[in-house]
């Protein structure tokens, strides 16, 4: 105990002085810190949120699972840029033109001249060959890659590979041989590559645990670009925080789910907004009893009835806040892929519930309504479990609504939430009845990849066996008609042949419904069009707008100009 009053007074004085000093610096630090530092030329720093959470770990290796968004697109580039938002021809980037041979087994690419890596070395055909043949990224179907001259590369495959055009030309990162050669496969995945050497419009300036900054690449092959000299990617942990930062004007570009998009501009945030719904949200059903699925959903009548009982309009309004788009049971993106939809299949999924039609379907298949209103057959009630991931509130809300709507039609659905790991396990192994999940929308204006990866019998396993990476047919659907049509479509680049094959596939899948379509999930992008121009807008969707779009993000960033 401090008995001496003198000492007590001294301590108080010291405490006061420290406190005052801290407050003073606090105020001055805060005051000075709120203003934006003006970096040299090109206006202030563009602030982006692409989904990174803190702590941010510096990793610009495109083959690492935890690579930062800034590496993909702004630093590293691909040969061409494909537009996910609209049907259009690919834009030449590092490649100038390409040509398939007769049967799709050879692809010849002509490269752009005069491109240099950001460390000064020249970009050559050897780099392209290395990018395709190194251990970490070599495709299984590639037989050889050859640089026939300084600006031409010929890729040879083991079969027709038209359908992998996007993967090869639009999604393969070009990496410099002089930096990466000699690394083992393990090193290529674990190397953090903190000063990446790429051809893109930006290079890495600094990384901290809360943000990383990219600065313009002075030797970029497009003259005068990028006009925005510095870009800062932030790490934010909760959507709510990101929304608040948007409203206060601290973010210039982000792609995230905001239930009230008009409120952002109203509160003083960026006014630019575009919603490009892209990814289907569906109910995976374990549909194939032959491969081990169990439960009432293995009967196609039950799936069809459920399809009719769901009120998609209400689900969109309440669970997705009206921001989702109408889905087509053909899984062709309405608007962008219209040309591929066969004329005599159902184009759009029913938007309102039709409990009577659902009941009719079940009764035709031999089900009778029990005393409690639930249908049953052979003593088995139509009782299904529906799981969705904890924390994905829009899916969880939709699941609750479906439970209600199905009950009205005589199907007992029990909705519950599970951890992400359990969700992943259940769909990988096939041990589920109904799961609410998403499909990955195609990156080109062609639904083929969905048909092959999600519906084809070659891309699935029996229940109990985990699917291999690259296999997405969680429903275990295996229909030889569909498989044949998929292979036929893969082997040709002829539009009418493809359309015929797609028509066959669509007839089958709209009848069998191994995935029950719900909505096309919204993809919202907010951007600051007051301080910057050149964004993709509703009128000019030249690229996929969100900040996490990888290749398209780099393309958009290169296109922006600050308004002065």
């Amino acid at each position, binding site marked *: 105990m401090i008995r001496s009053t003198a000492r007590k007074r001294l301590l108080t004085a010291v405490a006061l002085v420290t406190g005052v000093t801290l407050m003073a610096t606090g105020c001055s630090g805060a005051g000075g810190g709120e203003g934006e530092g003006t970096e040299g030329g090109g206006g202030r720093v563009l602030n982006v949120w692409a989904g990174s959470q803190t702590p941010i770990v510096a990793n610009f290796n495109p083959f690492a699972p935890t690579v930062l968004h800034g590496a993909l697109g702004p630093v590293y580039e691909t040969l061409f840029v494909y537009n996910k938002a609209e049907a259009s021809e690919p834009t030449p980037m590092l490649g100038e033109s390409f040509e398939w041979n007769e049967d799709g087994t050879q692809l010849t690419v002509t490269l752009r001249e005069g491109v240099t890596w950001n460390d000064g070395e020249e970009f050559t055909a050897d780099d392209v060959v290395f990018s395709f043949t190194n251990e970490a990224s070599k495709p299984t179907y590639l037989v050889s890659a050859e640089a026939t001259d300084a600006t031409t590369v010929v890729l040879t495959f083991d079969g027709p590979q038209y359908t992998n055009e996007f993967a090869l030309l639009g999604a393969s990162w070009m990496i410099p041989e002089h930096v990466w050669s000699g690394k083992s496969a393990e090193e290529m995945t674990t190397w953090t590559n903190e000063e990446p050497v790429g051809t893109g419009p930006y290079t890495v300036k600094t990384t901290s645990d809360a943000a990383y900054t990219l600065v313009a690449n002075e030797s970029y092959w497009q003259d005068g670009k990028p006009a925005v000299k510095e870009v800062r990617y932030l790490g934010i942990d909760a959507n*709510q925080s990101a929304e608040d930062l948007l409203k206060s004007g601290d973010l210039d570009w982000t792609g995230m789910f905001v239930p009230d998009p008009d409120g952002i501009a109203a509160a003083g945030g960026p006014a630019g907004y575009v919603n490009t719904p892209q990814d289907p949200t569906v109910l995976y059903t374990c549909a194939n009893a032959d491969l081990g699925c169990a439960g009432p959903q293995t009967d196609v009548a039950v799936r069809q009835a459920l399809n009719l009982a769901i009120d998609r309009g209400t689900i969109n309004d309440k669970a997705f806040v009206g921001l989702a788009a109408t889905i087509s049971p053909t899984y062709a993106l309405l608007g962008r892929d219209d040309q591929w939809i066969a004329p005599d299949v159902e184009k759009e999924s029913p938007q309102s519930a039709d409990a009577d039609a659902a009941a009719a379907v079940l009764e035709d298949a031999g089900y009778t309504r029990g005393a409690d209103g639930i249908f049953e057959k052979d003593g088995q009630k139509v009782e299904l479990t529906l799981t969705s991931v904890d924390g994905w509130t829009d899916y969880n809300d939709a699941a609750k609504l479906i439970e209600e709507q199905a009950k009205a039609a005589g199907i007992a659905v029990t909705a*519950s939430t599970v951890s992400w790991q359990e969700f992943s396990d259940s769909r990988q192994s096939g041990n589920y009845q109904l799961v609410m999940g998403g499909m990955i929308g195609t990156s080109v204006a062609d639904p083929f990849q969905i048909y092959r990866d999600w519906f084809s019998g070659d891309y699935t396993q029996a229940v109990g066996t985990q699917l291999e990476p690259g296999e997405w047919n969680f429903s275990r659907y295996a229909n030889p008609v569909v498989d044949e049509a998929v292979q036929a479509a893969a082997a040709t680049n002829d539009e009418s042949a493809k359309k015929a094959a797609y028509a066959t596939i669509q007839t089958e899948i709209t009848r069998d419904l191994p995935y029950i379509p719900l909505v096309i999930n919204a993809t919202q992008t907010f951007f600051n069009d007051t301080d910057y121009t050149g964004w993709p807008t509703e009128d000019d969707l030249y690229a996929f707008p969100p900040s996490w779009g990888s290749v398209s993000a780099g393309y958009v960033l290169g296109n922006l100009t600050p308004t002065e």
Partner: protein
Amino acid sequence: MADDIREQELARAAGPAVPLDEAAVDGLPADDDAPQPVESAIVEASAVGTAAPTATTARRGVRQLLPSLSAKLVVGMVITIGITLFAFVAPMFVQDPRYSGNEAFLPPSADHLLGTTKLGYDVFAQLAHGAKGSLMVGLIAAVIAIVLSLVFGILAGYLGGWSDDFLSLGTNVMLVIPGLPLMMVIAIYAPSRSLLLVAFILGITSWAGAAVILRSQARSLRGRDYVAAARVAGEKTGRIVLVEIMPNLLPLLAAQFLSAVILAILGEAGLSFIGLGPNGSITWGTMIMDSYGGNALSSGAWWWFVPPGLMIALFGCGLSLLNFAIDEIINPKLRNAPAAVKSVRRARRAGVDVTARADAVPAPAAAGAVTDQDRETVGA
């Protein structure tokens, strides 16, 4: 910080917990030669004070065990019983909490007393069902915690020797392991969490604090004459613990039980908020989580977000006030001292001052002099 259950337990334990040899729990003065358990500073937290309380003549028997009626007690009881009734009766009279036919985000109105949620659920209905859910979790978790702390506390305190060392080792280990991280680690391994499982996890991670207190009490009671008499008479250990020791610790147990309930409810709210709460049930915690995930704040839907938090606080307040009243039974000083001060002040105002220090001559003992005896009977 309320997120760590044990830390809160100790903050409380440090306070109103009965000073070891102050125990007026069985009406007898504390044992002078009761051994002081010295195992840890935590246990020692209650070892303060040495004098035995003065015997009170006012209340005897069962009445002595019941708390005296004061404003705090009345308010506490009203709140607690009110909310409990709300939890079990109201769900019968409200709309189905999962009926989504209403419009979304409606502000409070005559139709919907607390408005609607993002999906159109009636918030008041959710609150009523949530009350039931939260109270169930609180109750079950508290029961589990109390039973465990009985075993590790009273049994250990009474038995002494090796069993005591062993059991209190377990207690102290559990005391030191941080609660919320342990709960998170356990919860994440469970594929789907029912209300029961969450209550179970909360219960098994929060008994240590109460066990410590009960143990020190049991140790002091062990030396009492009637316990020795029972032992000599040949009664079995179990019977002694249940019949002789535990009834004297009832007020203490009650206080710990009420603390455990509110801590369990807060714990469940915390777990729900980070997504590790019960799936499929409605509790106040899941309501807060839903409203946060449903962007209630940025949509201005305060009627969805504020009520569940306030209800938790209100219920906790009610239980704490009850606890206060119980503390006043356990520790008569808490009851007597404020009353004593009050009566002194009253006397001073009346012109009769018995505690004046500045005066060289003490005031004459007038007719209205306040004596020690009077002070006791003033009550609380």
